[in-house]
């Protein structure tokens, strides 16, 4: 469905380019695709770029984003607008805070629908809105309420309902659970899973929370320093993580019953000045001399299993 080829997103500044996304390639067919990584790795920038929402001083020097074969980066604005929201809906980070505080929920949802598709009539829309609110587990009274009357978890579910209004094929959600309580987080994740399994909505899920990916994503791409360092099925990634960064991420998660939790030493590098060779080498416990000089490419070492690390390219 979605194929990204060597996408780069840079930001101009007086001191050179911030190479936030520096050559990302992956293929997404179906199911829930997770993009994982810590803050600063470029995952939010990546999805903004995929949807062509990058604003100056950001620019896209190279890359292709093929949605059903159509390059989203090259088609004219008109066509892109038809695809946005109707085929692909985007739930950005912190979206729940951008609800208009002075307009009732129902009206805001109608506005979104009418903005992107003028062919629906009001009463049909109202019914649809009721249906969607129920689907996300909200009582229908919510439609007549104002955003400030709702809790964080409810607002987030309203946003998801809004995203569903034009029955998109794909929803891209950026950190939809961050800042919410555990119970609510679990609820949102369950909801997204239901949308995928029961209603067949494809989901790209961006989050730094590996535990969330464990529950939700079918396949995960791990990002570090502007590049993808590993891709694989979720079960595979958790049982046999290949890239040292992935291993570090997984062992850093506190878990009930786990006696020791380790963190990754060192600091995240800066997009203005990525380390030479493999970007993880300054923090990697397995680093060799080769790692400092040569940046390992993302290679498919088994069908569907990709990793960018010299440890594996030499073995295979």
């Amino acid at each position, binding site marked *: 469905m979605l194929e990204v080829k060597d996408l780069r997103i840079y*930001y101009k*500044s007086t001191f050179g380019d*911030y190479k*936030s996304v520096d050559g990302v390639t992956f293929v997404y067919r179906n199911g829930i695709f997770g993009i994982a990584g810590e803050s600063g790795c470029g995952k*939010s920038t990546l999805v903004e770029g995929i949807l062509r929402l990058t604003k100056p001083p*950001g620019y896209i020097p190279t890359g292709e984003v093929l949605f059903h074969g159509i390059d989203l980066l090259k088609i004219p604005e008109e066509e892109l607008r038809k695809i946005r929201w109707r085929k692909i809906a985007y739930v950005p980070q912190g979206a729940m805070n951008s609800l208009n505080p002075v307009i009732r929920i129902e009206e805001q949802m109608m506005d979104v629908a009418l903005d992107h598709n003028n062919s629906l009539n009001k009463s049909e829309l109202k019914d649809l809105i009721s249906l969607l609110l129920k689907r996300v587990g909200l009582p229908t009274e919510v439609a007549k309420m104002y955003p400030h009357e709702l809790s964080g978890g409810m607002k987030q579910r309203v946003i998801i309902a809004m995203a569903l209004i034009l029955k998109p094929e794909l929803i891209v959600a950026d950190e939809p659970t961050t800042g919410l309580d555990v119970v609510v987080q679990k609820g949102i994740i369950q909801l997204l899973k239901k949308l995928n399994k029961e209603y067949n909505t494809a989901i790209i899920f961006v989050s730094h929370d590996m535990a969330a990916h464990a529950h939700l994503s079918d396949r995960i791409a791990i990002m570090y320093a502007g590049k993808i360092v590993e891709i694989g099925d979720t079960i595979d990634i958790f049982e046999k993580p290949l890239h040292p960064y992935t291993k570090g991420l997984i062992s850093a998660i506190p878990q009930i019953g786990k006696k020791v939790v380790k963190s990754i030493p060192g600091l995240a590098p800066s*997009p203005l000045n990525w380390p030479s060779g493999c970007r993880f080498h300054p923090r990697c416990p397995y680093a060799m001399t080769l790692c400092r000089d040569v940046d390992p490419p993302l290679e498919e070492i088994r069908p569907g299993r990709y990793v960018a690390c010299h440890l594996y390219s030499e073995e295979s």
Partner: protein
Amino acid sequence: MLVKLRGKSLSVKELEKISLILKSYKLKIGLGILLSLIIISFLEPIITRCVLGDMDPLAPGTFEKFLSPSMEHLLGTDHYGRDYFILVLMGLKNSLLVGFLGALLSTLIATLVAFSSGYKGGLFDTIMNSVTNSMLILPTWVILASIVLYVRGIDIFAVSLLVALFIWPGSARSLRAQVLSLKNKPYVDLAIVSGESDIEIIFKELLPNLTPFIMFRFSSLIIGAIFFEVSLRVIGIGASEYISLGLLINWFLTRGAIGAGYYHIVFPPIVLLILIFSSINLINAGLDEIFNPRLKKVTGE
């Protein structure tokens, strides 16, 4: 995100700020105009001496009245036959003086009131707040006009003080709102548990962060003070103890210059007031650009 520049590490934010200050046209032009006006007014005594020697610039009848501009009298003479250029310079100097003094005093009062009541809260705050709000509602202009009308012999410093006493409430109110918003920040809590006293918190934690805001209020108050004084003088209230731009305007309105079409008398005070006003606004706008970065984050994280 650190960048090494000439050996010293600067963050992106700092570098952007510096380049903004250097690039801001508004700030440069505004400062340029204002500084020129200030320098000229400082030079006024010297210029007076050069042009008039030992003659008293205010003495009537020194020259013929309403002479046109010439090499000897750059702006001609006024209704009393005095060199107008010198009078304008004196007016400029005194207006600026009233502006700065009035602004300084009122900023001081506003800051004291806002910080103590905003931070302390409780009954003290309620009282001070009521006082401030009442003063905003009262017709302060009328009250001040009445005071000035009945008091004889007030000099420029007294006028500045009086003006200051009437224009501080507006600034106090907005400053208090700022103090309230900062009072609950976590770093204030941290200061409390680190053993800082109330006074220390006001001066060391809150004040530095509010300095840009106080500066804005100060420059706005300069305009406020100047125009407050002008508004009194133009109508003729206040003894002519000293010359200000407002007084000059009053003179050309009432002593015949405007009726007779002597525009060399009419324009200078107006133009100068406009210049003062615009330069300060430009400075404010320029500072606003710097202190409220509207630039999107460069890295987009």
